[in-house]
């Protein structure tokens, strides 16, 4: 197990470098110029050149990237070109918002999806069809539309939750929870559908195995057969799906944070990309890469806990 974790961590270094490099190159290809955005149309050629020199924008992309890496290895993620705020501060102030949203959505999707999947695997064909249809609908509904619909119904019409905004946990745990309900539900819907389907399919396959028949014949209670034996042995596929779903929620968070005006990383990355705020974009890309690495690591650890063969290999 320790070997797996160590290998994962070592492999993460080149992974982060690759993500960082690709992001830097892609950002440099986006049309626009941060110096032009900052100075507007009134700038003299001298002002424009001076600002581009100050921001190192006149240097080749490779050289800019190398300079960026040098600073990162010194622990300096740079400062926002537009707000002059340290990127580390941008990330640390917004990360809790995004994590609250993503982890919350993952928990909801995992719990609800697993329950639905187990339910449909142990019921008749009708319940399976219902889960199939729900999966299709859940995947087909655009997250943007779902978010606006939830806001219109539960925030505007019923007044149960705020339509936009975020309150930190330290400010008020209740308001924090309230501000996350609609965004979490909007983000989780697609994940519920997928997890339910994967759980259902894995459970159906497991419930067909001989040892399950043996357990039943031995008098083991149905509840124990399903929850303690079948689900556990179906959980490898489930854990993988939950891990991948959580990673996909990072992308979904960009849309949801914009609709609900949550001050998270997804919200700022859109602005930063359009404005060519390269240090901020890079900082967020690195953060997302680290989150993906951590999620994959947790999935591997879960594998080891669930499957003794993985632990001992």
């Amino acid at each position, binding site marked *: 197990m320790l070997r797996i974790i160590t290998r994962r961590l070592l492999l993460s270094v080149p992974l982060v470098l690759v993500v960082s490099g690709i992001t830097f190159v892609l950002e440099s290809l*986006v*049309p626009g110029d941060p110096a032009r955005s900052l100075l507007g*149309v009134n700038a003299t050629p001298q002002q424009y050149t001076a600002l581009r020199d100050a921001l190192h924008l006149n240097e080749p992309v490779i050289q800019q990237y190398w300079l960026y890496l040098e600073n990162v290895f010194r622990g300096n993620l740079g400062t926002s070109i537009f707000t002059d705020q340290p990127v580390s501060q941008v990330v640390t102030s917004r990360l809790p918002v995004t994590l609250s949203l993503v982890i919350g959505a993952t928990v909801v999707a995992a719990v*609800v999806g697993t329950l639905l999947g187990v339910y449909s695997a142990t019921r008749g064909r009708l319940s399976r069809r219902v889960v199939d249809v729900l999966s299709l609908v859940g995947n087909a509904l655009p997250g943007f539309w779902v978010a606006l619909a939830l806001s219109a119904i539960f925030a505007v019409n019923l007044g149960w939750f705020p339509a*936009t905004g975020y309150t930190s946990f330290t400010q008020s745990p209740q308001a924090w929870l309230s501000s996350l309900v609609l965004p979490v539900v909007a983000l989780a819907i697609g994940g519920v559908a997928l997890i339910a389907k994967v759980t259902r399919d894995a459970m159906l396959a497991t419930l067909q195995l001989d040892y399950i028949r043996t357990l039943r014949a031995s008098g083991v209670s149905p509840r124990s057969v399903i929850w303690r034996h079948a689900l556990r042995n179906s959980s490898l596929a489930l854990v993988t799906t939950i891990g991948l779903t959580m990673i996909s929620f990072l992308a979904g968070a960009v849309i949801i944070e914009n609709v609900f005006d949550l001050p998270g990383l997804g919200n700022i990355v859109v602005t930063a990309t359009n404005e060519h705020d390269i240090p901020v974009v890079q900082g967020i890309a690195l953060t997302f890469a680290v989150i993906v690495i951590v999620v994959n690591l947790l999935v591997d650890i879960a594998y080891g806990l669930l499957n003794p063969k993985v632990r001992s290999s």
Partner: protein
Amino acid sequence: MKSQVTLRRTAVLGLAIAAALPLTACAGSHGSANGGSQSDTITMSMPSAPISLNPSTSATGLYINYITPAYASLLDEGQNGQIIAGLADKWGYVGSDNEAFQLTLRTGLKWADGAPITATDVVASLEYFAKGSGPSSPYLHGMTFTAQGAGTVVIKSPSPDPMIPDLLTPYYLAGAIISPAGLKNPASLANSTDGAGPYVYDAAQSVPNDQYVYTPDKYYYDQAAIHFKSITVKVIPDYDSALEALKSGQIDFMPGNLDVASAVQGSSSVTVLSAPTLWAGLYLLDRDGTVVPALKDPRVRQALNFAINRQAITSAVYGKYGTPLSQPAVPGTDGYSSGAENVYTYDPAKARQLLAQAGYGKGLTIPVNYGSFDPDNTKLVQAVQAELAQVGVTLQLKADSNFGAWVSDYVSKKFAATILSPGAGGSEFFIADSTFMPGGIMNVFGATDSQLTAAFNALSAASQAQQATAAQQVNDVAVQDALALPVSASSTIVMYSPSLHGEQFLPGGNLTPVTAWTSA
């Protein structure tokens, strides 16, 4: 049977637990995220964050609401468009040539840090604005600023300029003076404030790119003018999300667009206010024929103006929030004349005739760049493209996805025409100076027109009583020589809670800033 019942109970219990947790957050949660809207606070939304909190680089229009709470201006604009006192309570031109302007500060003024405001401070701030690259900077180039005594400032322009007092209002920002403490470290002005406004920027409660909070300044000279315990400007890029927040009472004010304004038509819980403030259309930049030689010929430019059905395009793009417009001046401004609306009726046959006379009967191609980040301008330019194609004129469109890209393309001089997002408005002096005069910020090719220059010089030197006539004469030349291709007067739309008061579009098209509003 028993196992099925047990399983059902377990599943229901699990789902109930998952669902119950959020319900504990319901009670008392409405409007609680980020403070909501109370009678002694105001929360407004803007679709994007400011490029900077530095008033010398800030955008104008509704974006002044990021600036005006913390930066009071030297002068202000009254309900009838007249100049009124601000931090200065005496002002006026010296002599009759509109070249020397003098203002005197109120006594006892203090910066937000408590230091007294002097004429020397004001001079330093104006000089800083003049050297910058913000919207007001070009109008200050070449001016000199002198302090006379403790409270008097003299501004001298190298050429007649009847608009100096307007520059010093909140709507052009040059008068939003910055303290010496701020000027010592200009980089800090990007995310902090050093002004003399009724409020100060509260960095502790603010989150850059998300929300900007302002709390009362105890040193402001007119404490009775401070109407709110705090002003919060939230960045909500999506108009639908902002509308949900307005309807649920989380915000009190938002800029609107055609879609959201139409969605609340007839609603008693949201007030919609609009006024035509900007002319939208094509800036014919290459009037000297550098990239497209045809555009040097006035007959070609006139043909473009005859070729488009302004009524149809305006109706399609702006609905009831637009007016067809044939002149680069908005109704209600000093340059606008109703007679100019009759010069270019929709006449494609005449357009073809003029093009043939100019030698372009087989058509021509005009490269145009525009900001695709502005959906209204995107629809507008595509509609104009379709109409001009009917007379053999091809618009080769380049979409710029962000403002920086639009600026880069604009200054490249590869595009003979452009669309400015969201449009332009204001007095004829500013329109002509920025758009048609050599050196104007929207005249990248430096094109010249001798008739317009003569009319502009007359406007610059005109007395107050002659300003309106002189302004219309400038506009008449711009129309006759077809220096632009206006299509519509688009309205600025704002939406707010009925409990809010004081929002008003002034005659020049500016909306009163948030510092002038009150709450019932």
